[in-house]
Each structure stands twice: as structure tokens, then as C-alpha cells.
């Protein structure tokens, strides 16, 4: 029992939770920014830049805009961070998976949804028009990208007849896995708010969107939650491909490799596309997402 406790706490705070999740997320974010810069013929940031950003923000004085409740202002990033840390702790990475039970996928998905919901609230709670525009866009995207995202995961769950994530990682790779990964990847672009779906935080139009009024520590927490989100979402796709491997260290290598590959792909797509309008993005997800959903269910149930 005690052993389990330690392992659960270890999952939440160290691996794959808060500490390693943040470090891995920063690594992925750095790769994202660096490769994007290289593709655009720029130098790009130094390796420690995501950490520097975070550290600098922590040291800054927090200013709360007039008319905004401090309790709401602070509690939103904290809830966001907690949700994503717990989601990451459930992810069955190599040497992880201490917290695993039948139905953990449902909890995982709901926890993963939380940062988006919190963002939408945060945009309105801070009373800036830019943030509100960002929020409405984010809200609209959530009912769009969830179609391929949920279809992919549910189809795989039906194939394996379980909502337990650890079964997902040990399942053999099939066509269904590949299509699921593809569907998750389509959704990932909007979940990470990168081009062509960088609509909620479109910096040229609405400054920084949702987080425009956030500063100092609360903004640092939001940024940290974002880094963890990157780890979780890239990791979620990566764990689907670990079934055939038995050696844990090799699993880890493949896990990191696939995560990095995903982020590089994201960068390439980001560099190669321009931002869509929100209604176009919505239509994209409801047409291509629907096609992906049909394909993934066909592959899972028929093949």
C-alpha cells in the first residue's frame, strides 16, 4: 500500500507528472520554436529560452485589472495546472502508469478538456475585449476539434473493449492505430493553438488573445500548464505505438522520438500555412474530422 502511495505521488510530481512533464514540454516547445525559426530562415531561441520565460514571469509583480476578482484571477490558472498535471500522471508512459484503473481514459479526457474551459472563462473574467474574442474563438474550436479527437480515442477503446489507457499502450499496432494517431494529430493542431489554427491567440489580430490581461505568476502558471499540455498531447499519440516493444528503455526512446517527430511535424505545418478564419477552421474540422471519424470507426470495428 505504502509503495503504491509513493508511486502515485511520484507519478503526479516527478515522472511523468509536474517536473518531467514540464521539462519535456519545454524541450518540445523549444524544438517547435527552433525548427519554426529555421524554416523561416531565422536564428531561433537558445535551448533554455522556455525556462527563462517561465522564470522571468514568476519574478514579475502581478497586476490585476480593475474590476476583476483576485480569487478568480488566481484560481483559474491553478485549476488549469492541476487538471493537466493529473492528466499527465494518468498517461501510461514507460516506467510510469502507477495510477491506472478501468475507466481512466474518461477521467484523462475530461482533465485534458479543463485547460480549454478555463481559458474561455479566463478570457471573459479579465474583461478585455481581445481576450473575449479569443475566448469565443476557443469555445467554437472546442466543439470542432473534439470530433476527430474523441472519435479516435473512442474507436480505439471499442476495438480494445476498455477505457483503460494502459491497455492502449500494450495493444499491437494496426491500421486502426495509425488512423487514430492521424485523427488525434488533426485535433492536436487546434488543441495546441498553432498555425493554421492559432485562432484563439492570434497575436497579430487580438494581441495575445485569452491571456492578454494575465501577467506575472498567474501567466507563468498558464504557460507551465501549456508546456504540460504539449507533453501530454504529444505523449498521448506516442504511447499508441509502444505495443510491439518490450524493453522499457527502448520504449522510452521511441516515446521521446515520436513526441519530437510530432512536434517537428507541427512546426512544418505551422510554418507552411497561414491562419484560417474561425469559420473555416470550424468547417475544416466538421468535414475532415467527420471523414476521419468514419474512417477510424470503420478501421476499428471492421478490420
Amino acid at each position, binding site marked *: 500500500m505504502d509503495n*503504491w*502511495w509513493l508511486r*502515485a505521488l511520484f507519478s*503526479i510530481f516527478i515522472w511523468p507528472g509536474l517536473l518531467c512533464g514540464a521539462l519535456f514540454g519545454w524541450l518540445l516547445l523549444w524544438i517547435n520554436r527552433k525548427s519554426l525559426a529555421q524554416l523561416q530562415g531565422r536564428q531561433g531561441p537558445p535551448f533554455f529560452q522556455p525556462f527563462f520565460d517561465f522564470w522571468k514571469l514568476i519574478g514579475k509583480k502581478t*497586476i*490585476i*485589472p*480593475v*474590476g476583476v*476578482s*483576485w480569487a*478568480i484571477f*488566481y*484560481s483559474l490558472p*491553478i*485549476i488549469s495546472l*492541476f*487538471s493537466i498535471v*493529473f492528466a499527465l500522471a494518468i498517461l501510461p508512459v514507460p516506467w510510469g502508469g502507477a*495510477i491506472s*484503473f*478501468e*475507466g481512466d481514459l*474518461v*477521467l484523462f479526457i*475530461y482533465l485534458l*478538456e479543463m485547460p480549454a*474551459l478555463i481559458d474561455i*472563462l479566463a478570457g*471573459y*473574467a*479579465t*474583461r*478585455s*475585449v*481581445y481576450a*473575449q474574442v479569443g*475566448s*469565443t474563438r476557443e*469555445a*467554437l474550436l*472546442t*466543439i470542432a476539434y*473534439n*470530433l476527430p479527437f*474523441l472519435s479516435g480515442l*473512442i*474507436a480505439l477503446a*471499442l476495438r480494445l*473493449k476498455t*477505457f483503460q489507457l494502459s491497455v492502449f499502450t500494450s495493444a499491437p499496432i494496426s491500421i486502426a492505430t495509425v488512423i487514430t494517431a492521424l485523427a488525434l494529430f488533426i485535433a492536436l493542431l487546434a488543441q495546441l493553438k498553432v498555425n493554421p489554427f492559432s485562432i484563439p491567440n492570434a497575436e497579430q489580430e487580438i*494581441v495575445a488573445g485569452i491571456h*492578454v*490581461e494575465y501577467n506575472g505568476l498567474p501567466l507563468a502558471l498558464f504557460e507551465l500548464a501549456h508546456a504540460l499540455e504539449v507533453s501530454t498531447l504529444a505523449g498521448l499519440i506516442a504511447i499508441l505505438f509502444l505495443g510491439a516493444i518490450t524493453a522499457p528503455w527502448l520504449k522510452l526512446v521511441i516515446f521521446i522520438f515520436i513526441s519530437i517527430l510530432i512536434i517537428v511535424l507541427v512546426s512544418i505545418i505551422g510554418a507552411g500555412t497561414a491562419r484560417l478564419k474561425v*469559420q473555416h477552421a*470550424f*468547417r475544416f474540422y466538421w468535414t475532415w474530422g467527420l471523414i476521419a*471519424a468514419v474512417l477510424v*470507426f470503420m478501421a476499428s*470495428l471492421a478490420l
Partner: protein
Amino acid sequence: MNTLAGFSLIVLLGGVVIQILFGKILTTRLKGWISFIIGGISFGGILSLAPVIIRGQTIKANLFNWQAETPFSLYFDGLSLLFALMATGIGSAILFYCIDYMQHETNTTYFYTFMLTFIAGLVGLVSAHSLLMSYLCWEIIGLCSYFLVGFWYHETDAVNGARKVLVMTHIPGYAFLIAILLLYKSSGTFLWSDPAISAQFNTGIFILILIAAMAKSVMFPLHTWIPEAMNAPTPVSALLHSACYVKAGIYLVARLYSIVPWHPSWNFILMAIGCVTMIVGALFALIQTDLKRLLAFSTISQLGYIMTAFGIGTPYGALAGAFYVFSHGLYKGTLFLCSGAVQHAAGTRDMRRLGGLSKYLPGTTLVWLVAAAAIIGVPLTNGFVAKWLLYDAALESGAWVVIIVAWLVSTFTAFYILKATVSVFFGEPSSELQIDEINDASPLMQMGMGILSVACLFFGVFPQALVRWIAAPAITAMQFALPEKITFLGLRVDSSGAPITAGALLTISALLVVFFIFALRRPTPKGVSSFTGGDPLPEGGTLNAVDFSEFAEESFSPAFRILNPDPVYLWIWRTVTRIAESVKIGFGFFENNLVAFLIGAILIIAALVFVI
């Protein structure tokens, strides 16, 4: 113990008598207090039955004899307990809220009389042993809703709404009556527990009962009355949506499991109706601008979930349904009471004219946020557990369409609830609001809503309490065996239940600690207003509810035309009116023309004589 079975019913009806007899003497507040106390006592009466029922026994009693068939006998089992607790428990919280909410109204004797009869009607329905008594109570709650929705009878909208409620639920109610009479004709009894009823039950009877249940429980396409019922006082809406009215249909469908083993096609029909209803409700909720109408459509969608859960037809499905029905009562009741507090404070419930109320109504905002989290399905709330149980039940039975539809609709739920939340409580206050005159709900009202929202959190963290004491007896009564143990947070785990609990407690305590740390170093606002970049702001300086969802509206606009059955009903309504008009004109001609009348009468009589 048997004598206690009718106790709650008699107390509630006693309350009605008190209201009528002393209505002239009592003050408005006193009437409210008396109603609340009556509600509380009847809740206590139901609770006192719980230990016996949890042990797996049933309680039978006879209210009074009436020939040999005893139409007024009561039968209390787990399913009755679930619904009766909901009606009296949530009903009492709502009555408590009424004390302050209704204090400036006139005609409150009328109001409280029908509120108590309403609750008594549902308690009677769920504890009726005879199908005749079920039908009687079924129509009593129908009539009560008519009178309560039309409480402000001098307003045209309220009267029209009440008429629509009555017409659209009363006519399908005849299907229930026909089913009862058909069953009586073939089996010779009205008591539903009689094996003869079970033997004579067939798909036709099922469909007839389902039609009645669909109208009461707002299933597509018989759902269009509920948005019109919004012109009622808010406590009435809360009672109608959360505990009493719409749950009656759910009860009837769930009760069918006690009566007869289901044919697989029945499960399919129910799941199909449930899935379509949840989509339709959520889609229409997206485009609403009236807060209560939005909540009304969300009720349609949520009841789709509940029907689907009961439609799955496995022990898990029944458990999910029983859990969902109670959870929905809690959070939907809370949301309605909050919307009432908003209307009370701001004088409007048009979301385009609201905004930024979190600063003026902090208590209401907090309660709303908890209930909103519950309906979205945020972990640590009862809504999450309910959804989780539903998905799991659907996965277990292989109903994959149900999972994907239910889950996608839950993202729509998040969207429209967020729309309501941000456009009422956050953002800039609308320039039309009289900010100086806005005060938070009174402490009594806040307590009424607060109790329900605390229950949402309690059953989210300790769902096993609800499962063991309320849902388990209900599914036993539905002839299912309780599947496995459910632990904290609703996660089905066999051995490692305690660690999950620990995880939940860890989260809560960590959040509290962090909150406490921030509370200690509470910063003061520095007087910096929101950044606008010097740009001129749009009118009002904020986005409203329409801006929030306009793209979604555009994208789904064809669906709104196709999925609205109201034009069909209006066509039927107008045609019937037109036929009645022409009949009136025809007979009017005869009335005014004695000669024509006589000739006509002679011709008809001659024709009759000739035929015979």
C-alpha cells in the same frame, strides 16, 4: 412501518389544506415557511422508509379501500425511493428559496397550494401500486404545471405557455390511459406488480406508454412545450425541470423494467430517441439568448442522456440512469434557482443585456460555477460520475454510437453552459444594467441554492453514498443486480479504491492550500484597467451572448429548420381550429334559419328511417 408509507403523501396534502384554509390569514412569508416545513417533514417521512428499502424490502400500504381492486394502495420500493427523495428533497430546497423569492408576490396561496400538490403528485405517482392511481397522479402533476406555468395569468406569454404545456402533455397522456385499459382488459387487474400484467405486456403497450413518457420527459419530437413553460416563476421552472415534472416520464420508463423483461427492440427504440433528443436539445441550446430558455433546452438534452442510459438495458445502464437522474435534479435545480436570482437582481434574463455580474452577485456566481461544472462534467462533481457511468455502460454493451454521440454532445454542453456563464457573470456589465441597484440574492435564497450545489460536490467526491443508498435500491427494484462496488469519484476499481480516494482528497486539499496561500498575500487591484491598445471599442465595450455563438449558429443553421417540429404542430392546431370554425358557421346557419333547420332535420331523420 407500513403505516408510514402514506405519511409523506398525507402530510403534503395536509399542507395543501392548511394553505387553502388559512390562506387569507397568513402572511406571504409565513405561507412560504409552512410550505417549506411541510416539504421538510415529507422528506423526513421518505427518508425514514429508506433503511427498510435499502435492506431490499418493499413497503405496501392501503390509503383507503375502494371496492375490491384497491386503486389507492401504495407500493414503495427502491425506484419509488429515488424519485420520491428527489421530489421532496429538491422540492424542499426550492420551497426554502421561495420564502424570499415570492415574498413580494400576491396570490401566493394559489402558488403554494399548487407547489405542494405538484410534489404530492409525483410522490403519489412513484408510490402508486395501481396503474389507475398512476394515471390520476400523472394528470394531477400535468394540471399543477398548467396552473403554475400560468401563475402570472395576466401575461399573454404565460397563458400561452401554460396552454401549450397542457395540450402537448395531456393529449399524449391518453396513450398511457389506453395502455392501462388494454392491460386491464386482457389481465383483469390494475396492480402493476401482478404477474398477469407482465404476461399481457407487449410492444404495442410499450409504445403507448413510451409516447406518454416522451411528452412528459421532453423527448424529441414532443419537446417543444418546455421552452414555452419558461414564463413561470423561477421556482416553478426549477421544480418542473429538476425534480417533479420531466422526471415523471423517466420514472414510467424505468418502472417498465420492474414490470416486464424488455425486448431488445425496446432498448434500441429508447436509445435512438435518447440520442436524437440529446443532440437536438444541445443544438438548440447553442442559439438561445434567454438564460432560462437555454437551460430549458439543456434539460431536453440532459433527459436524452438519462433516457439513453435507461435504454441500454444492462445493470450498468440502469445504474448510470439512476445516478444521472438524481444528479441532474441537483444541478439543474441549482442552475434554475441561480437564473432566478439573476433575474431578481438585474430585472432581465436576456443574456445580451447581462454581463459582469460576478462582481455584484458573488454568492450566486459561486453556486452557479459549481452547478455549471457539474453539468459540464468536470471531475469532482456528480455530473462527471454520471457521464462516466453512462460511457462505461455503453462501452460494456457495445453501443458505440451512444458513446460518441453522448461524448460529442457533452462538448456542446460545455459550449452553451460557458456561453451562459461568461455572458451573464463575466465580461463587462452591459450599459443597460442599473448597476447601483443590483444586490446579491438574500441569504435564504443563497442557502436554498447552496445546499443543492454542495450536494453536487458531495456526490461527486463520494458517489458511493448515492450509489449505495439511493441508486442501488432503485436498480434492484428494476430487477437488475448491482454490478460492482463504486468508489470515490465514481471510478470503478476493485482493490485500489483507497488510493483513488486519496488522489481526490489530495487534489482538494492542494487546491485549498494554494488558495489559502494566495488569500494570505491577497494583492490589491492597482487601478489598471483592461488593455485595449487604444482602439475604439465596439458598442458596450464587450461581446454579448450572440457574438459568442454566431459562427456555430451559422454553421448549424440548416439543422435548426429541419429539427423544429413546431410548424407541424401549429399546422395541426390551425387546421383543427379552421374545421371547428367551419362547423360553427355551418351550424350557425341552421340556428338562424328555422326553416332550413327544420328541412335539414327532416331530411336527416328521413334518411335515418330509410336506412334502418
